[in-house]
């Protein structure tokens, strides 16, 4: 099977994730879209690892997973904290930086 198809799939997933981050208001969905983008990157890394015939890409993919796990922990904590204080999970409500 042509390995470039994996790259196309990864680009598609990344785009879906990016658009999701930009257009969605729900913090949880935005969060999931970020995960989607990270996994698209992982897929790309693994594909390039396969194409180049070494394991560098697969190693970096593990790093990405660790970073993603940490990010989930911190991010979910922040979302829960915001939800508790504002009774809303919409990220547009948390726009205090404007003022």
């Amino acid at each position, binding site marked *: 099977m042509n390995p470039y198809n994996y790259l196309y799939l990864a680009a598609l997933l990344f785009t879906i994730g990016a658009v999701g981050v930009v257009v969605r*208001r729900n913090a949880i969905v935005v969060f999931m879209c970020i995960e989607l983008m990270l996994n698209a990157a992982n897929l790309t890394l693994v594909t390039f690892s396969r194409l180049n015939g070494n394991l560098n890409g697969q190693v970096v993919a593990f790093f990405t997973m660790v970073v993603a796990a940490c990010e989930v922990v911190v991010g979910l904590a922040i979302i829960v904290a915001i939800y508790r204080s504002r009774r809303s999970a919409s990220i*547009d409500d*948390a726009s205090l930086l404007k003022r």
Partner: protein
Amino acid sequence: MVTSSSLVYLIGLPLFGSLFLLLMGRKADKWGHLLATAMSAGSFALGLAHFFAMTDRPTEERALTQVLFSWIKVGDFNVDAALLLDQLSISFVLLITGVGTLIHIYSISYMATDPNRRRFFAYLNLFVASMLLLVLGNSYLNLYVGWEGVGLASYLLIGFWNQKPAYATASKKAFVMNRVGDMGLSFAIMIAFATMGTVSFEGVKESVERAGTPALTAMGIMLLIAAAGKSAQFPLQAWLGDAMAGPTPVSALIHAATMVTAGVYLIVRSNFVFDAAPTAQLMVVIVGAITLIFGAVIGMAKDDIKKALAASTMSQIGYMILASGLGPAGYAYAIMHLLTHGFFKASMFLGAGSVMHGMNDEVNMRKYGGLRKFMPITFITFGLGYLAILGVPPFAGFYSKDMIIETALNAGGAKGIILGSLTLIGAAITAFYMTRVMLLTFTGKPRWDENAHPHESPALMWIPMVILSIGSVTSGLLLYRNDTFKNWLAPLFHDHAHHEELVPPIVVSALALTMVAIGVAIALMKYHFKEVAPVAPEDVSWATRFVRNDLGQDSLNETLFMKPGQAITRGLVAMDETVIDGAVRGVGSMAIESGSTLRRTQTGYVRAYAALIFVGALALLTAIWVVTQ
């Protein structure tokens, strides 16, 4: 040169008095005037002691010096703060401290009701100290310090009653016009420094030979401008009339007897420069001749007694400047007239003050009349001063003024005839306007205001007037007899030329007296045998109007200098506001504008920031892709 250690006290005493009184403040109000008078009198006593010591020494050892400290020392250039007391200086020292002390005494009574009398005396002492520094400095730079000091004292005293805006303006006018002259003096010092490398009188005198005529002419003209500013000579004469805003003792001391004669001192002191620069010398004569007529003409139309006397001062200093421009023949007579003028003009000014004192400070002579009976002492002292200024023998002015007329006539050729006739015409006009002052003030019917109660002034005021009038009777003869004063000053000047006597002195005296008689006769006709109106008549010829208007001196200055100056100032202010302030404000508002524009991108929505990051990353990638293709 003999050195002395006591010269500094001549200046030090009044300077101490001035500073002490200013620093003590209101605490010294009760006795401040006594201290100031004592300081001035002490200085006079010291001056007298120096004078008698000087007469005992042989001619070549008469000059005294005292080096106070090394003032400026740069490479070869060295200026000491040093004093020089020679035959010329001592004449001034005695005049300044002598007349000064008398006027201090007079002011005790004249200013008795003024709440700021202590401050007045502090300024008077400051003036005496500065004037003494002016005549005692041994270099142009030391003289310059005193020169500015008297300018400051003059400014402070003209504007002493500065609660009246007109008086404050008058003091400012005097100060500004004096600055124009001072600029001339500073240029003269610069020329001396640049061409001769020295600014001391001794040094300049020795370097005159190698300085070259152009530099000396330039220096002479600059000195003349300085003298014109300080001595109210044409074309810088306009301030003197307004300077009469000051209290009358100030007018007597500063604007009649001493400070305004500093210009004559400067020219006579710089005799070596003018002797070597005939062009500058000629200009001195021209300025003197113009001013002596100019002042006299203005004096004819003045109804304000002090302004009439001020115009007369201007005219008399014109005589002195003219004499000092006639070279070695005239220097001694310039100073002699200066001394006699110091006596009789101070006496008349104090007389005017006494009249004002008795007439509720009224200065308009048309509101006087018939005061002879009410103020006999003032009338006699003023009258003696009047006879002296007219040049009636044997009063002081007869000797000093006739000698100037004689020297002018003896200048020879067309110059002699022109100058001689101008001085004679001046004498006639002087006789006219002084007689007018006498007649309007002391004779005729009273034209007083209803609430005027004329009375003789207290003894503290008339005693100085009496002493000064004795001076105005005797000083001329004392100085003239056996050429005493001429021989006294002779060692200072290089008088090698033989002076031809073109016109015999008796003819000169006869001519002068005839002119005086004509002037007196016209004045008698106009003001004695005719009724004098208590208000100045309005239906007068354009010429009278022009003279009343000070021959247009103020409007000329206004159109030529003041208005263009104001226009330039306004232009500069406008430029400052539009160009300079505009640039600064423009930078500020540009920052504000760009800030408020860029602020709109900061929405606070995380999504917007994320979108921007994506767009940016995409743009970057596209750019890299385009470049690497």
